[in-house]
């Protein structure tokens, strides 16, 4: 099995999941309770990766991150190098591609909290951060777990976006799913089988965690 690809994939998935957690909690809260008229626009944008072919998303990200345009140049200045065909570029692409898998469970979780509980909290504390940390997050823990597991496993299994943005550079941007593709191209079916089994086991375990948790919670 390609140890380098395993390490790189899990590093990418861990980083992506952490970033997505930081984004999805406040964004999910806002989507659940916010009153802005343009909320549907944000909801549609967040959900776009669910319906968009990964290659389309990868293509536009590649164009956006190119040093030939202002946005790409600005990002290159921040990171010190162009993001296309780099690990940092993979992280950006993965965060965007897995965004709905983290945000939607959080939004549903926040929406499922009784309005009376929210009101009781608002009557006692004007600190929304405190309400979020002490009341809401403990109540939406199953949704948080779902968001983490889905974001992590979805990132581990990415192919199209990763290939478009990162190319296929061993040790830099070659993830497990691309490694499988390479192995099949090289007729290395035994190796491809081992790597595929790893991803199959991981995906099954992730779903088992989510459904096991739901079963215990009676939902």
């Amino acid at each position, binding site marked *: 099995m390609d140890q380098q690809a395993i390490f790189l994939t899990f590093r990418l998935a861990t980083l992506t999941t952490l970033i997505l957690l930081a984004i999805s909690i406040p964004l999910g809260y806002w989507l659940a309770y916010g009153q802005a008229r343009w909320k549907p626009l944000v909801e549609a944008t967040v959900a776009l990766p669910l319906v968009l072919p990964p290659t389309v998303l990868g293509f536009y990200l590649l164009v956006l991150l190119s040093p030939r345009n202002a946005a790409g140049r600005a990002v290159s200045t921040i990171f010190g190098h162009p993001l296309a065909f780099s690990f940092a570029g993979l992280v950006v692409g993965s965060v965007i591609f897995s965004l709905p898998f983290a945000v939607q469970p959080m939004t549903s979780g926040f929406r499922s909290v009784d309005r*009376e*509980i929210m*009101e*009781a909290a*608002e*009557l006692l*504390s004007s600190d929304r951060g405190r309400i979020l940390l*002490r*009341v809401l997050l403990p109540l939406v823990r199953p949704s948080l777990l779902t968001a983490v597991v889905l974001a992590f496993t979805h990132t581990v299994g990415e192919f199209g976006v990763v290939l478009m943005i990162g190319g296929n550079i061993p040790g830099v941007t070659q993830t497990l799913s691309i490694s499988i593709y390479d192995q099949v191209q090289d007729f290395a079916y035994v190796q491809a089988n081992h790597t595929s089994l790893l991803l199959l086991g991981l995906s099954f375990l992730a779903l088992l965690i989510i459904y096991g948790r739901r079963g215990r919670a009676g939902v």
Partner: protein
Amino acid sequence: MSDYLQVDVRHTLGDLSLRVSCSLSAPWTVLFGPSGAGKTSLLRVLGGLIRPDRGRVVLHGRTLVETTSGTWVRPALRAIGFVTQQPTLFPNMNVTANIAFGLSGLDQRSSGERVGQMLELFQASQLATRMPADLSGGEKQRVALARALAPEPRLLLLDEPFTGMDADLKVSILEPLTAWLAARSVPALYVSHDVAEAFQTAADVMVIDQGEIRAHGPAQAVLATRREQLLRQLGEGTG
């Protein structure tokens, strides 16, 4: 007690059009009216859970809501305690943590002392470490009252908190509650649709129907002038 609360609000909520103008001065006022008359909606406006379409709410000289100037004080900053018919405790916190939630301005020691006082007041010290799921309805309501009083509000809103309780249990909660309120001169606005209860317990009664205040004054005076109408309204409202 001089007028502590001035209300002049207009708000449309579904079929209900709330048009309330009143001033409250009695330490204990019962807001009485049939189901759907706007009792709960008025309390929610006062508590800050509903933003009225138009109007003004002033508590102890402090403007809480003024739609013309855009003044809006958040619920937790209004110094108003609110207890609903169904006590909503935070299910992930034990009784102590529930009561302490509104005491973020106090240090840990003072907060602990206040929680202890509240539990003692409602004879609930033995519940301190219990979780809400393990409490009976009456115990939950004691904790909800303790939690509402712990931040020492300047007005207490009670939305039929004793519905469904037997008389002994109700008295065992009402007695310490009224004593606590009287000792601190904290007024209460108490919602009820029980005509007997309204006129037995109230210093003042405010009758609301179809979103408007129909009568307001000392209980016996309101009862004397509107007895027949009140009983008819009650019969219609509760079916």
